[in-house]
């Protein structure tokens, strides 16, 4: 079975919010829209977003590390938000594992949001139904798009390629390899909700090299011996060794 998901690389996310704005842009006018706002130009603006980028800081100044943490529905493999829904409006797609809300069935009881420990469902105050990340279901299932564009809007927008998209049940997919080889982890694993989205941790990539390794001491083939330049009459060709 397919389980589509995102893998978010906290090692490269710079917190630019490009995924947030591209998500809102695509989805507010797409299948999952509108994503309504209240008082957008007033002192206290608020509205529906499927994706938010938060910022955390670890450590004590000056030894701190800043984490930009994009957060959206994790499309759990065992989603606690689905069985509690009294109307069946919340469901998990059989074919690709995406968790969705049918706005035509939702009665706006908000019970699903109580049952999600990640705080990623947002109630639309204007349409009075529950909304959440659809993994851009209208993009990823649209066969008229070229394959390179059959990806969530946030993935296409990310300037640092911090967001990888694919099937985590296919062991050879880019996401599975990333999770396996770069320490991908799930949020709040204690609950057993088995989130499909994973995060890649911060990694230090330093090479181990010593000073003496930069200059060859023995130099057996005399490769690094520079030709001595003649005092006069040098041309460009003479230095192009």
């Amino acid at each position, binding site marked *: 079975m397919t389980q589509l998901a995102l893998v978010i690389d906290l090692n490269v996310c710079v917190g630019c919010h490009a995924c947030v704005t591209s998500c809102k842009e695509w989805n507010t006018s797409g299948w999952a829209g509108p994503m309504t706002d209240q008082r957008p130009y007033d002192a206290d603006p608020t509205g529906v977003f499927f994706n938010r980028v938060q910022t955390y800081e670890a450590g004590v100044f000056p030894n701190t590390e800043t*984490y930009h943490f994009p957060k959206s529905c994790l499309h759990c493999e065992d989603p606690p938000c689905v*069985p509690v829904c009294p109307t069946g409006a919340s469901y998990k797609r059989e074919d690709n594992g995406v968790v969705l809300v049918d706005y035509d069935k939702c*009665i706006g009881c908000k019970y699903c949001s109580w049952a999600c420990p990640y705080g990623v469902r947002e109630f639309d105050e204007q349409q009075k139904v529950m909304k959440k990340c659809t993994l851009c279901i209208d993009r990823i299932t649209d066969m008229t798009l070229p394959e390179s564009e059959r990806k969530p809007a946030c993935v296409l927008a990310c300037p640092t390629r911090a967001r990888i998209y694919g099937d985590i049940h296919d062991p050879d997919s880019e996401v599975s390899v990333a999770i396996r080889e770069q320490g991908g982890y799930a949020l709040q694993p*204690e*609950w057993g909700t088995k989130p499909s989205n994973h*995060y890649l941790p911060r990694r230090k990539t330093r090479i181990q090299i010593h000073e003496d390794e930069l200059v060859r001491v023995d130099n057996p083939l005399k490769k690094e011996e520079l030709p001595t330049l003649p005092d006069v009459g040098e041309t460009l060709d003479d230095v192009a060794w």
Partner: protein
Amino acid sequence: MHPAFSVIFLTTLIGVGQGLFLALYTGQLYALANLLPAQSSNFYAVGSMVSLALLFAGLIASFFHLGHPERAWRAATQWRTSWLSREVLALPAAMGLIFLYGTVHFFDLTKPLFVISGTLPVDFSLIMGGLGTFAVFGLFLCTAMIYASLRFIKAWYSPLTVANFLFLGVASGFMLAAAFSAYQGTSLVGFYGTWAVIATLFGLLTRVATLYRNGQFRCKVDLKSAVGVHHSQLEQKAQGFMGGSFNTREFFHGRSQGLLNLIRYAFLLMVFVVPVILILLAYVLESETLPLLAFGIQYLGLILERYHFFTEAQHPQNLYYQSMA
């Protein structure tokens, strides 16, 4: 959690209504066993209608919680998995049976249908009441399990939640039954008052145990597990917006600890202490109005109790919404 008054009224009103019905039926059973004087059918009919009216008022209150009340019928479809859906079925079932119970009494359709072992005459009201009792207990279970089944909200995830809903509903219902019989001038005030006090004391036991439990535990997850950064000094700097969102409105009560303490003492007094004293006084003074006062104060206390119940719940999603910048 943010306490929603629609849900506070729903749970307290149907609790009283269910308790009142149980009181009426208990009275009938006692009368059948000749332990109490039999009441006029009018007593049961009017009592059932009061109970029904309370359940109906609760139902109306619940509609205010919904974004799309016109689609509420859809909520009956997922009873296999959702306690909320089960409640949506149990509530009308209980209302229907209570209505039938009242109607049977109103039209005096209480001729025995058959007699069990020569001593127990079974009539329509007995059958309807028995079924109604099942439905009412089922409804108590469904209502409480809506909260008690949310394993992430540890303050609710406990059998104590079910016990509280049951005992507090029964207590307030019997309290109302005492007030009702005092008003009707029947001799059942003492009987209902006694059971009201017993249920109230059971409720005191489980509610205080809940308060104690909720003061003790720590949540299974913390910020480190929520973000996946296992550093001892981890702090949120920005939650991604500055104007608030559904997540900051729905899951935070925004009340000061001082106010919550006040509410806690107030509900402990108004639900458990004052009504018991008033009922005892009513018994001694043979007063007709004190039981009504006892019920009124207990009901107001229950509103505060339910308010506090919601503020007690700490949702793990709050870990992600600690600082605004």
